[in-house]
């Protein structure tokens, strides 16, 4: 097992190298230059354009953009080897620091919503598989399909308008992750305040995944429930509860676990809309703003770390198989 993990971790190196090389090339070759964008941000009343050119060249040199692209990539790699992702063009703070500020915020959102998705989706899926073709199964099916097809920015807007104060109900806060002065609250009150703030964004991040995963769970369950060993289990007189939860459900979880690995990075990246709408300073918004401003160091830092998390997520999913299904083992089979 240990050697398997080690092998997988080593394999990540060339993968990461490839990912960063491709990302680096694409963003640097994309039209738009950070030096020009910065100088054009405010240009009314400036003097002569011949000077502007000179100043743009100075800025390029300051950002190290005067060197050819392959040299820049090597410089970047050398930096990253020491876990230094350079500094943002926006505020000259270390990229690592900026990202470390943001990751916990995004993780709070994504982990809470993944947890909720699985907490609800698995039982719903199992229930509708067991009650296949019943009225309740059909109602659940229709409901989930409706949820799945609602775009999340629209849902977020509706939630903000209808339960976020103004003309309608003032039930939830629509801005940030804390109330004013929440730092001074006792822990329990602070946690309550945080959860209250998380309610709407997490709801937006959860419902579509919930619909998707529970459908997958239903399908997997139906697949398993038709198997001979389930019939055997029933035939030998096991109580239905035991058949469903012990024999059928555990076997149906494997595809769902695989999906978790895919869901994790998707939620990190997909939250750019939700983070923007609810003014939550997370990773998605950071990456998006960096792309618009061509803030190369931040884009690269974001991409590298997201890629790394994705690879780790996939590895974690693979390892989870062994927990669910004892037949799967990564011990050396030589």
């Amino acid at each position, binding site marked *: 097992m240990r050697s398997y993990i080690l092998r997988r971790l080593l394999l990540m190196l060339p993968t990461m190298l490839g990912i960063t090389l491709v990302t680096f090339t694409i963003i640097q070759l994309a039209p738009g230059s950070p030096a020009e964008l*910065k100088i054009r941000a405010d240009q009314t009343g400036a*003097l002569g354009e011949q*000077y502007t050119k000179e100043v743009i060249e100075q800025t390029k040199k300051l950002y190290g953009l005067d060197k050819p692209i392959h040299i820049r990539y090597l410089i970047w790699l050398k930096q990253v080897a020491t876990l230094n992702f350079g500094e943002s063009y926006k505020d000259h703070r270390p990229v690592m620091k900026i990202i470390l500020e943001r990751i916990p915020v995004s993780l709070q959102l994504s982990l809470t919503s993944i947890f909720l998705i699985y907490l609800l989706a698995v039982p719903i899926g199992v229930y509708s598989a067991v009650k296949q073709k019943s009225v309740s199964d059909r109602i659940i099916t229709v409901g989930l399909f409706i949820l799945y097809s609602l775009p999340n920015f629209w849902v977020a807007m509706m939630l903000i308008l209808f339960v976020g104060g103004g003309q309608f109900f003032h039930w939830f806060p*629509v*801005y940030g992750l804390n109330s004013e002065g929440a730092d001074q609250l006792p822990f329990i009150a602070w946690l309550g305040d945080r959860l209250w703030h998380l309610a709407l964004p997490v709801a937006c991040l959860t419902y579509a995944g919930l619909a998707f995963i529970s459908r997958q769970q239903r399908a997997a369950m139906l697949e398993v429930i038709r198997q001979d060993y389930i019939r055997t289990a029933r035939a030998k007189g096991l109580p239905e509860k035991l058949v469903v939860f012990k024999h059928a459900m555990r076997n149906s979880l494997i595809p769902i676990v695989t999906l978790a690995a895919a869901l994790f990075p998707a939620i990190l990246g997909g939250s750019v809309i939700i983070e923007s709408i609810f003014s939550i300073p997370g990773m998605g918004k950071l990456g998006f703003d960096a792309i618009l401003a061509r803030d190369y160091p931040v884009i690269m830092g974001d991409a590298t770390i997201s890629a790394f998390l994705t690879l780790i997520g996939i590895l974690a999913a693979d390892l989870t198989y062994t927990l669910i299904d004892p037949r799967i083992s990564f011990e050396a089979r030589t």
Partner: protein
Amino acid sequence: MSTRKVATIALCVLALGACKLKTAGEQESSSCPAKVESPGAVEQILPPPGSKPAAGDWLIRRLNAEPGTLNPITATDNYSQMIDAMIMDTLLDMDLATQELIPLLAEKWEVSEDKLTFTFHLHKNVKWHDGKPFTADDVIYSLQRIMDPKVDAAPLRIYYIDCVETKKVDAYTVRFTWRQPYFKALEALAALPIVPKHIMDDGTDFNKHPYGRNPIGTGPYRFVTWETGKRIELVRNKDYFGKPGYFERIIFKFITDNNGALQVFNQGEVDFLERLSQTQWIKQTNYPEFFKRANKIYYDYPQYSYIGWNMRRPPFDDQRVRTAMTMLLNREAILKNIYYCLGKVVSGPYYVNTPYYDQSIKPLPYDPDKAKALLAQAGWADHNQDGILDKDGKDFKFEFLISSGSETAEKIATIYKEDLQSAGIHMEIRKLEWAVFLQNVQEWSFDACTLAWALDANPDEYQIWHSSMADVKGSSNHVGYKNPEVDRLIEEARQEFDKQKRIELNHRIHRLIADDQPYTFLFCPKELAAVDKRITNVVPYAIRPIFKFAEWYVPKDLQKYSGDRLQRP
């Protein structure tokens, strides 16, 4: 992953734009009333009779995004400028009402006979927020840093590139010498951002100096905290040498989404909300409870939008064609249907509320028949009977560049496309992300594009209209405008220190440009804002930053916050 994010956002913008287009597409030809009719909205909020200004209470403002840094020398975004304006002072201030320079850190100043030397005499009892005295060294140090290529201050550097000599006459007198006479030199020096030398000059890299997140100024407010991703808080400087504002604290909250911001305002957690969208203004803030807790205010904003025609390429190298293009755009109807009449159609590159704008020059009317006649004169007619105008065997087709994210640009483009279609012109709308859009414009690879310029109190048209800029890639004269007469007038105006004479020169430039139609000038928009009901004496002025926040106050009996706490929940 990165590209997917962009694609998702672009799609959302598209989807939003598409739903709203239907209503905007129906055009009515009636024009706007002379005065804005908007229920519940006012031009200014004056204190009720008998009300007395009282110190205290907080002002909570909203920022669309978090500033990068508060170091005024390396900062590039508007947000840091808004905050720094409270914390820091400049040598001179611009009086928003008279649009004249008035003393601030410098109590008086002199301009030499040859208009090349500017001497500033500094106030002697100004202290930085840490108690150290403010002297000429700080001023000189700040300018040195701006000019230092290792400092990330490129946009600022351009303003001072003509300053050839900086001299400390004594501890409280500085003298700057300019390479050539330029009427805006004094304005540039007046606005010079000043940082404390005793803090900054400690050997650390200027760009990374912790000062950027913990600034110290001489201004009416002191910096308190910056909670990353959330808010910045300032407190009133009791030892301020001038007249500080009335608010005890000023708080800036970062709220990205416009709808979210309006809801936060509705919840009472923001007191002043600028830049409401037209839809928010007309539809979402028009119910009685809203009026109970807020005032709506509107004001002109020093800016104009335009469609720029690339004069380097046919067919837009022909003045008649450009004039016809303007006459084919129903600007009045767009103003009415898309802007809900909140703005003005302009005829030239000046701000309508400054004397530089020649009010006698009227915008060209919407006149498709006359446009067709002009196009025919220029040789454009439907010779091959295919419904599209042609000349020398070439169809009249062009691409209209807009930047994604600009909802109004997209609506205007769609209306324009239909109008042009019926005149036999085929226009293709091309929407690009901002950075790519900018690159296309700067490299002249466009037929037509739409943009806006923000305007100063005193304009210098050199950068945008002088012919020497027309052949420089990346310059602001991206349409390639060349007119020797305009060149001469611009050069004269740049060296003219008499405002009245400059006004006359600019009136002549205005007329020449209006005749040449290098742009189809669009609108000077009205900005829309909501202010919490308890705040009074809110008066907009013609030029940026529009408001004198030091005038605003909350009458004693209405104050909501006191010291650190909420007074009434």
